[in-house]
């Protein structure tokens, strides 16, 4: 039983991190109609900047607060200096442009930080394990689960209950109509792109104490996040949550029972879902 509980929590931790990344990917697709290949690199950037902040201040919490806005600001800047000019082109151009941005950012991080992985310690009272009945579980991993839950609720409340959220949903549904009704679509796009990057950056900071900050972590997470949004449906928050849980579970149990084929299981699940719902569980037909 303890074993099962531990795996369940492992799956939830992984799902939490995947959600922080895929939620932004999905949000950006909903508003900008762009699949952001560079999204994983913003996650990696968050992890590295988190390392820098922790090294400079000696504390973990400032990293969690400062890094996401910084990553978000960089994202907003890149959107308004490159992507903005090519929205009218077919989607392939935007995908390729973000591919180029990903190469630039990844290589810049390699130059700045060198090839070795950078580890961070979690804050003192989140270190060690906590006992949950018969089960001992690392405190920090529980914290990641709680953090991603809080973010999920926060994003949902923001999109459903605030005026800004209403405008964003309007632009997602019909950007031309929203434009006619006075929404500043260009600004919404920049801000949403920035916010999505900030979420990815937050995910990166949260992941760093568990996985360390290393080159290639962005590439790894973006492929998983693609699978998440394909399963859940692009542009849907609920889909992003469901997809994260499914991929988190498939990877955790796959790695435990069939370590050689964990990746294959994830793709098999995706394939099976797509046969019945080619646009994902919560997606809408294009």
């Amino acid at each position, binding site marked *: 039983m303890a074993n099962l509980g531990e795996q369940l929590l492992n799956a939830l931790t992984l799902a939490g991190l995947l959600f922080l990344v895929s939620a932004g990917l999905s949000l950006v*697709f909903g508003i900008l109609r762009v*699949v952001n*290949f560079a999204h994983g690199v913003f996650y990696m950037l968050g992890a590295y900047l988190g390392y820098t902040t922790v090294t400079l201040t000696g504390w973990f919490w400032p990293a969690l607060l400062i890094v996401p806005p910084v990553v978000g600001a960089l994202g907003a800047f890149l959107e308004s200096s*490159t992507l903005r*000019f*090519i929205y009218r*082109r*077919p*989607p*392939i*151009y935007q*995908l*390729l*442009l973000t*591919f*180029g*941005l*990903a*190469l*630039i*950012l*990844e*290589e*810049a991080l*390699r*130059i700045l930080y060198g090839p070795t992985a950078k580890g961070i310690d979690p804050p003192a009272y989140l270190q060690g394990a906590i006992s949950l009945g018969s089960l001992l579980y690392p405190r920090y991993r529980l914290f990641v689960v709680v953090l991603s839950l809080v973010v999920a609720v926060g994003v949902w409340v923001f999109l459903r209950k605030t005026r800004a959220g209403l405008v964003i949903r309007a632009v997602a549904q019909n950007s031309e109509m929203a434009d006619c009704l006075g929404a500043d679509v260009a600004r919404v796009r920049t801000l949403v792109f920035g916010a999505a990057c900030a979420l990815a950056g937050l995910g990166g900071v949260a992941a760093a104490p568990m996985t360390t900050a290393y080159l290639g972590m962005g*590439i790894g997470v973006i*492929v998983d996040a*693609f*699978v998440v*949004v*394909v399963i859940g449906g*692009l542009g849907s928050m609920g889909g992003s949550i469901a997809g994260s849980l499914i991929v988190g579970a498939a990877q955790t149990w796959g790695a435990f029972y069939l370590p*050689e*084929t964990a*990746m*294959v299981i994830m*793709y098999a699940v*995706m*394939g099976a879902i*797509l*046969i019945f719902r*080619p*646009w*994902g569980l919560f997606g809408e037909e*294009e």
Partner: protein
Amino acid sequence: MRGSRALATVALVALAVVPWVAARHQLSLLTDLLIYGLFALSLDLIMGYTGMVSFGHAAYFGLGAYASALVLIHFGQPVPVALGAGALLAGAVALPVGWFSTRATGIYFAMLTLAFAQLLYTVAYKWRDLTGGSDGIAGVPKTTLFWGGPSLASPQAFYALVAVCVVLSLLLCRALVRSPFGHALEAIRENERRFTSLGRDPRPFKLVVFVIAAVFAGLAGALFAPFRGFASPEVMFWVFSGQGLMMVLMGGIGTLVGPILGAMVFILIQEVLSSYTEHWMIFTGFVFVLMVIFLPDGLVGTARRLRMRA
């Protein structure tokens, strides 16, 4: 059109003359460029002419490379047999993958092809007994042209084989896109819904062209393995698929010749940059962003547009 015929003649003559004038390493670089060119050409069939952006095209290049490497090492057959095996395996795997992937369109198609390619990559990576895992298969020999025929071990001989394969593939692809089948593909690219409402089902067309593109990519991979002497999982990695898209874009989407040139320019830029700095990827990234924003038609597309204006 007379201009392009003259250009084609010049290019053919240049290809034929090169083995007699180029130094050994230049000839080997050109062989490399032509193999990547063939890969980009195959991608242009689906990406440029049918509007299906595959993010997993490297998988078929890799399948071709592995099939060719295994045939050459274990059976010592002539190179053309290995080429056939590579093209056949790529096409055979593309059939079920295409059947699933063509159910989706646009960005979902891109992500599905990426996922299947990553799956194949994982298989190549894990199936240590057959593929050598992360080490890949080394020591692939350049055998002969046919049973008891001339050896292809010299750089000139292998270059000639690659050049002939690329030129023939280009002519075949050109004939394909100019055929009624090719026009149907362009109709699907322009307006799939209209194509459907005219009473045709686009999916068989998409599946067939997907398999044809995989066959040519497999051929490129099958040439790659004996030329470099190895096949490794890297050639199936998604980064290589992305680079393929870059090559097509750089040369000009939907021009066939363009992607071959694009591949050459792209690899040359990488070669030159990597001799100056280990951080060449950052410049590739910048070139890429600038190309997408300022030269969306690529080299050949832009040249054609300028000539139309003149």
